[in-house]
């Protein structure tokens, strides 16, 4: 088991076209670092600044819940979780 990342179309240049990559970590931040190790360049498209924060127009969900309401990059993750990254879009 591992943690799964669903890669949005625009970021697949960093994953060799793969829609799905996996990684490990106890927190979302550690998981993103782990994914960065195998797919260099992807991290800075999702987070920015020091200390790192999610980019404004990027939404990240762990098991469908927006992490901005569950502790942001410190959100806990575990094997079997699904992390989805999406650009913010309008509705209405």
């Amino acid at each position, binding site marked *: 088991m591992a943690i799964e990342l669903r890669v949005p179309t625009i*970021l697949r240049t960093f994953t060799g076209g793969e829609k799905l990559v996996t990684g490990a970590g106890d927190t979302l931040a550690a998981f993103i670092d782990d994914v960065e190790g195998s797919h260099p360049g992807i991290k800075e498209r999702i987070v920015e600044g020091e200390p790192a924060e999610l980019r*404004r127009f990027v939404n990240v969900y762990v098991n469908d819940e*927006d992490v901005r309401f569950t502790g942001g990059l410190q959100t806990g993750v575990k094997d079997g979780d699904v992390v989805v990254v999406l650009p913010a*879009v*309008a509705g*209405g």
Partner: protein
Amino acid sequence: MRFDSLLDSVGGTPLVGLPRLSPTDDVRLWAKLEDRNPTGSIKDRAALRMLLDAEKDGRLRPGNTILEPTSGNTGISLAMAAKLRGYRMVCVLPENTSEERRQILRMWGVEIISSPAAGGSNEAVRVAKQVAEEHPDWVMLYQYGNPSNAAAHYDGTAREILADLPSVTHFVAGLGTTGTLMGSGRFFREHKPDVKIVAAEPRYGELVYGLRNLDEGFVPELYDETLIDARFSVGPRDAVRRVRELLDNEGIFAGVSTGAILHAALGQAAKCVREGERADIAFVVPDGGWKYLSTGAYEGTIDEAEDRLEGQLWA
């Protein structure tokens, strides 16, 4: 119930219990039936309020043309209100919205400008801003940034729910322009701050998110994340499954976005049961299912329905 005109009948919608879908006697679900508004959607509230406020402050004058980016419902609501108050109406509509919505808009006399399917409503907003520059005399009420949109729910939707259900513990609604959640969230923060505000956001197919740079996303100007407590992303599969459950168990024929909202509401209900909390969860039914029949959401297997919704703006 008697009203002086159709416009006066906006709001005051029923809040109905869901005895079969509620998990226990202590954790209950309540549906706010916004399809009972004059044009059949919750957007009548925002459209009417935006229009009246713009008339009041002089931005909108007799004979003006109204321009709005919309995936359908807001356009239909504005078209009705515009027709009754004497304005011409132009909508910017993404190509991948249902045919019913286009027909209904044309029926109300709306002129439609199409925006590219890829990019969804983000593109409609971009195109509308461009058209607005070319026609400085047209009035864009701009639902994504107009405080009157949220005010309609502060004074209407949320206030009605609290009056009908003083024991309410959760409010669940869809996140599009964010108007429903912002207005209702602010109302509950001020009038019953322990009410949890839960957002259900539709997750579309890849086409809708387009190939755009991640820095070109769009967050409505109205959005203030401090007014909500949790936000869930719901894909078409769960939305279709839930909208059918609502029909099968409670007899309510709702639009596909209701399925997404119900999915979040049921998730919340299950959590309350696990934690032994009492809960009265009110959720919004933004519209009925009529406008989505051609999407195929209500026929065949869930797999088939999911495939047919791929690439469509189903909420």
